[in-house]
């Protein structure tokens, strides 16, 4: 028996009120916890899906443009210092930066021109595995090449050159076979022929040389500027370009959901706090004579303050624990309904639960501060005569 006996007994005696408060508060915590869990899982998979829309960072050789003119007569631009990139070097450097976990795929490109039946067409050397990941939206009539001399032809190029799956042709003097035709993508991909990197390097350039490298980074949670900065440091002789609009759009969709959920969570929490505050305030008014009596027995203001804060703490612990468990269970259910239960990393976490409880207790006690303060500032004689 000590001062805590008083709030404990009161909570038990007024169990209906306590239970109602607990139910409402717990429901609030449940919705907050499940909203956050579900959103983090959905956000993660959304991020993964968003990478399917291509690269957001370009790694290019540094180049300087010099406009040449003589006597006011422009003779056009001259590109100085254009060098190719070393594929192996870029791949190594890119995959060893600090934020490497945020990089989803690195796809090197070698661009060349070739003559097919007297027509000029662009040939792009790619690493098939990387390209497939980068361009998840690609769809083929046919299949990806399995041999080094297989090529994939863009839809416009196929129409122009009258090519179809299984056709043979020569590129830069070497024979190749069309293994698939791309469905229209609405991008530059439609007008070119994609060849395997090794074939392209052997036919059009030198081994290990590429023209530029496309990088897809997951950027909902991290600033793209940091990745660009780190890439620039790793590859000082190249030009790193972030395709800001794509990045921003991706971050926007993910962040929008997160922000929406944060706002809803705060509103729910605020309502729960108001509930606790109002209940405590009415409890203080109802027990004003008790408070006066305890003060007449020598209870300090701090003691009275503590009694009410402790009651809020009991509610907070209960609501935090029940709410967390409820929220966790609800998240699993919701993810099951969303058919995302498999690709989740959601597992029960005691630390999270303790943290949630601690936070909810803090919020609950904070909501009881004003009522508790009011209770502690009542003068004993006034409290005893009040109605």
């Amino acid at each position, binding site marked *: *028996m*000590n*001062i*805590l*006996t*008083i709030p404990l*007994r*009161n909570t*038990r*005696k*007024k169990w209906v009120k306590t239970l109602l408060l607990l139910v409402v508060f717990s429901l609030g915590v449940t919705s907050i916890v499940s909203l956050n869990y579900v959103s983090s899982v959905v956000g993660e998979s959304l991020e993964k899906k968003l990478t399917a829309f291509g690269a957001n960072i370009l790694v290019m050789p540094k180049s300087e443009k010099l406009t040449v003119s003589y006597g006011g007569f422009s003779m056009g631009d001259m590109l100085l210092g254009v060098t190719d990139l070393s594929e192996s070097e870029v791949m190594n450097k890119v995959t060893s930066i600090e934020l490497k976990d945020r990089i989803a795929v690195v796809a090197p490109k070698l661009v060349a021109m070739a003559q097919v039946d007297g027509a000029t067409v662009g040939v792009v050397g790619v690493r098939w595995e990387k390209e497939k990941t980068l361009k998840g939206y690609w769809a083929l009539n046919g299949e990806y090449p399995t041999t080094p001399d297989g090529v994939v032809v863009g839809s416009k190029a196929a129409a122009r050159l009258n090519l179809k799956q299984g056709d043979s042709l020569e590129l830069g003097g070497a024979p190749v076979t069309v293994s698939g035709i791309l469905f229209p993508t609405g991008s530059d991909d439609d007008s070119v022929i994609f060849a395997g990197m090794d074939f392209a390097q052997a036919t059009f350039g030198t081994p290990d040389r590429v023209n530029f490298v496309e990088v897809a980074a997951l950027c909902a949670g991290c600033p793209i500027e940091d990745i660009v900065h780190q890439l620039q440091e790793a590859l000082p002789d190249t030009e790193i370009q972030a395709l800001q609009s794509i990045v921003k759009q991706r971050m926007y969709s993910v962040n929008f959901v997160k922000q929406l959920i944060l706002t809803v969570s705060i509103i729910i929490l605020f309502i729960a706090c108001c509930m606790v505050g109002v209940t405590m305030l009415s409890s203080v008014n109802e027990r004003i*004579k*008790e408070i*006066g*009596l*305890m*003060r*007449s*027995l*020598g*209870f*300090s*203001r701090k*003691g009275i303050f503590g009694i009410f804060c402790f009651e809020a703490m009991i509610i907070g612990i209960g609501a935090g624990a029940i709410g967390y468990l409820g929220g966790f269970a609800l998240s699993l259910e919701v993810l099951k309904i969303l058919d995302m239960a498999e690709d989740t990393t959601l597992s029960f976490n005691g630390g999270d639960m303790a943290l949630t409880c601690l936070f909810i207790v803090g919020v609950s006690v904070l909501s009881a501060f004003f009522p508790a303060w009011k209770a502690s500032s009542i*003068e*004993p*004689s006034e409290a*005893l005569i009040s109605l």
Partner: protein
Amino acid sequence: MLEAKNILKTFHSEGVVTHALTGVDLTVNPGEFVSIVGRSGSGKTTFLNVLSTLLAPDSGEILYGGEDVTSFSAARLNQLRQKDFSVVFQFHYLLPYLSARENVLLPYMRGLAPVSKDAKLRADACLERVGLAGKGSKIPGHLSGGEQQRVAIARALVKESTVLFADEPTGNLDRETGESVMELLADLKNDGLSIVMVTHDDEYAARADRVIRMADGAVV
């Protein structure tokens, strides 16, 4: 031992000014039983509250053990209320969710330290003294009005204080129960407790060592 000097108290509420105490003096000697009588509204309760430190006067001194309690810090006032001064009200003010015994022990539940064994023994003795042995586990709602008031007296006794202030302790009780409460007070006085009691009952008042009569906020 307890001395009130020239106590003034004025209430201002909703534009009405009430001069509740207009210069009251009183000395209570150790072991003395003083009763205060007077018409309703004469300032008896106000005076008792000032004496027991539950209400701060506008001016005047209350000397206890040679010190002016009106200038005490909050901490020292709490100490005084914890130990030396006990108050019994017309209404019992028992906490409904604690048993009779726990209510008696309430003065010892001030802090985080658990109630001592010694205090528990004393609480049982006090309950026995007010004639409630064996009823300690009942909650106030299951006790009669007289029993409730006696629990409240036991709560005042358990502290073994030096002064007991009682504001119409028999006000809510029938004659017979009131009588038993008065006998208890007489008993306590014989044990050396100083008692200041406000009452409307002239017969009960007459049992005190001294009767003070108040009118319009002053002793007459």
